[in-house]
């Protein structure tokens, strides 16, 4: 039989996370896994120089290959060494077409690049992502004889179905420069072929016949290799042994193997997680979405209250009243002004003195005439009468001037009065006040306060059942700032807010002021927590909490290829593991590969395991053996051990102790 691995990566490409190739790791990988044939299959590239270097260093057959992105799936293309140069050239053309991780060629492009593809070994991803579609596979007809699957479980299922292509399982490993123990190089994806001479033609012929293809040397169905000459069942495996016999070492090694997804539940996770405060914290995390759902309507109400700008509302109403009163005062005073005669009176006109001044000047000229005209004037006018006329005119003018002074003064007063009257006619505007909006906000605040009072009332209610336990939701008030801090972690001054706890709207305003995020404020009026109770309506015991945690960790296992459990019984009240857990493990083993380490053989029996891996420390040498529970022997690289002896030894603390107890049982009629 030949052990083959036709899917190995040695170069980092756009389809890989970055890694550095190590020749030492390559050599070690082949050596530890005892490979007879490998293929170098990097994503869409072929490095002929590196290939030749690898070939030179290894003793096994090294075949040139490439993993091609075709029609959004992956296809391994492998050829004989004789085609090396042509293949290299074809891959260069391929590389030119695929530059990014999203690029892909189609069937026509492929057949154009690899015109002689019928001479190559083509292995599509069938039960492995990214899958090649059935329609693409059909295009290749009889040139595809097998399909790569993603796990030992899938291999078993596919192998049994004669209608599907022969499954093959390869490591798909990146040969990295890293420090590892030899044991860490073991691959858990192995394929054996009943084939002698290795060439593409022979490989194809062998792969057509599923009975010639195996995943372990012993050709056992339902088992696969995990290194160190050990086999594991694709179902339930119990790693059995005394303390410090190497059980955990095997689990740790398995945890590091190249699975699609592995869930490793370590012993301390159950014991640490089952402590009261940790458990409560975990439970509330699990039911956080239920808490969110419970708070939903209250959150909506709080958000609408946050939008109320109470300060602005108060400013508005204050401004409205002030301006209303002012307006009323001024508006009413304007009517009195309008009534005042002076408000609409005209000014007095000035009396003209131009005429009298002209007359006075004329009379003054006649009186003061000194020339030839004096005699003519005196012939007709008596000088004395002229003087009297002049004086009377002067008196007249002075009288007018006196009147004008009074008129001017009066007009000044009139102007001032009218100016003052006009000032009071600039009536102020009343500020806009939306009484409807204001009233709505008052009512909202009132309703909010009522709602919070109702919501603070303590209420407990069963809301769920999980793993046979009741889940109780409790609603209650907060007891103080510390209680608030337990729910809202960012550091804010809850000490300033909590005194207002009895006044919900003011409390809300304070929360905003101290910087609590709007998205979290709704959680701080009443507390919602969850508690698990057993059938007696009591809080769970330590063992019950462990059981809950374990079952929760095992809840969503659809993607788990492998599940590892480290001594679960040490965390429980019942050393046999109760029915819930036993049932769950049985279910898991149908779809995932399960490894449970224990020093209690009753568990192996109770759980109906498919495979026992027995570990022992023999004078400092760690030895391991495996076999089915109903087989007489367990086998390993150190030989065989009797299954009965192993179970008795572990169960009954040895044969002598068993014989002594046998007498007791007989005497007591047990």
């Amino acid at each position, binding site marked *: 039989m030949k052990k083959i691995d036709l899917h190995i990566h040695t170069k980092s490409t756009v389809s890989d996370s970055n890694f550095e190739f190590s020749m030492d790791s390559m050599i070690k990988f082949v050596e530890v896994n005892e490979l007879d044939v490998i293929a170098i299959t990097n994503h869409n590239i072929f490095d002929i120089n590196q290939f030749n270097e690898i070939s030179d260093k290894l003793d096994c057959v090294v075949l040139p290959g490439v993993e091609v992105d075709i029609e959004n799936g992956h296809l391994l293309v492998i050829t004989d060494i004789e085609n090396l140069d042509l293949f290299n050239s074809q891959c260069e053309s391929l590389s030119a077409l695929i530059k990014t991780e999203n690029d892909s060629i189609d069937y026509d492009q492929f057949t154009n690049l690899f015109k002689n593809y019928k001479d190559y070994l083509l292995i599509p991803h069938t039960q492995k992502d990214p899958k090649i579609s059935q329609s693409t596979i059909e295009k290749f007809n009889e040139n595809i004889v097998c399909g790569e699957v993603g796990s030992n479980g899938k291999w078993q299922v596919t192998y049994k179905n004669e209608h599907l292509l022969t499954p093959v399982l390869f490591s798909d490993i990146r040969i990295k420069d890293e420090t590892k123990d030899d044991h860490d190089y073991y691959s858990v994806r192995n394929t054996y072929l009943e084939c002698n001479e290795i060439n593409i033609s022979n490989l194809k012929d062998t792969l057509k016949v599923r009975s010639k293809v195996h995943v372990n040397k012993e050709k056992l169905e339902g088992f696969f290799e995990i290194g160190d000459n050990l086999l594991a069942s694709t179902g339930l495996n119990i790693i059995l042994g005394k303390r410090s016999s190497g059980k955990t070492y095997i689990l740790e090694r398995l945890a590091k193997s190249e699975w699609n997804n592995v869930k490793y539940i370590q012993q301390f996770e159950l014991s640490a997680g089952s402590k009261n405060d940790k458990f409560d914290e975990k439970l509330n995390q699990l039911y956080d979405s239920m808490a969110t759902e419970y708070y939903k*309507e209250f959150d909506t109400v709080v958000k609408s209250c946050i939008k109320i700008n109470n300060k602005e509302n108060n400013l508005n109403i204050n401004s409205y*009243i002030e301006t209303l009163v002012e307006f009323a005062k001024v508006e009413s005073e304007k009517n009195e002004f309008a009534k005042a005669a002076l408000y609409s009176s005209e000014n007095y006109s000035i009396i003209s003195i131009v005429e009298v001044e002209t007359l006075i000047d004329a009379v003054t000229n006649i009186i003061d005439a000194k020339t030839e005209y004096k005699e003519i004037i005196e012939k007709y006018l008596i000088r004395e009468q002229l003087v009297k006329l002049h004086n009377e005119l002067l008196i007249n003018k002075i009288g007018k001037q006196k009147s004008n002074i009074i008129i001017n003064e009066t007009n000044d007063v009139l102007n001032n009065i009218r100016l003052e009257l006009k000032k009071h006619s600039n009536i102020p505007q009343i500020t806009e006040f939306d009484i*409807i909006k204001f009233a709505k906000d*008052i009512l909202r605040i009132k309703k909010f306060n009522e709602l919070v009072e109702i919501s603070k009332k303590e209420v407990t209610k069963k809301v769920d059942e999980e793993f046979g336990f009741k889940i109780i939701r409790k609603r209650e008030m907060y007891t103080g700032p510390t209680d608030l801090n337990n729910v809202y972690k960012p550091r804010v001054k809850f000490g300033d807010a909590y005194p207002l706890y009895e006044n919900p709207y003011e409390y809300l305003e304070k929360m905003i002021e101290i910087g609590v995020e709007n998205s979290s404020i709704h959680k701080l009026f009443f507390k919602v927590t969850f508690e698990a109770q057993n059938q007696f309506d009591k809080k769970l015991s330590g063992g019950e909490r462990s059981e809950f945690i374990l079952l929760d960790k095992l809840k969503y296992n659809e993607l788990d290829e492998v599940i590892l459990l480290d001594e679960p019984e040490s965390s429980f009240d019942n050393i046999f593991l109760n029915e819930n857990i036993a049932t769950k493990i049985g279910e898991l083993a149908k779809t995932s590969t399960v490894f449970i380490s224990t020093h209690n053989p009753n568990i192996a029996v109770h759980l109906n395991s498919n495979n026992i891996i027995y570990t022992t420390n023999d004078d400092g040498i760690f030895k391991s053996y495996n076999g089915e529970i109903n087989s007489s022997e367990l086998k390993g690289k150190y030989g065989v051990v009797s299954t009965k002896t192993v179970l008795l030894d572990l169960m009954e603390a040895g044969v002598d102790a068993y014989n002594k107890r046998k007498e007791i049982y007989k005497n007591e009629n047990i």
Partner: protein
Amino acid sequence: MHTIKERKYIKMKIFKIEEGKAYFVSEDGNWELVNNITAQKLKHLISKSFYEDITFDEETDQNKISNPASRIIYNKLIDKLKSLNENKEDIIREVEQEYKQAFEKYSE
């Protein structure tokens, strides 16, 4: 929680005109001159109008407010409260609807 159906309407006069003077009802139930209105007192009148059927005196030829400033204040406030009164049912209905689901859920 008061719903529209459950509320009892009480006829309550909050504004009156008496002997030429205009008054409003204050928080302690006494009548105050309308010129003494403040924001706080108006808030109280608005709150009162939700759960009581409010009434007020209208100014008539027989019942006039003698002080012009008082008349202006009185009539402006009446207009506002009238507008509120007309929309009261809608406001209450709207706010109660906003809170309905929350009250139903948390009144366990």
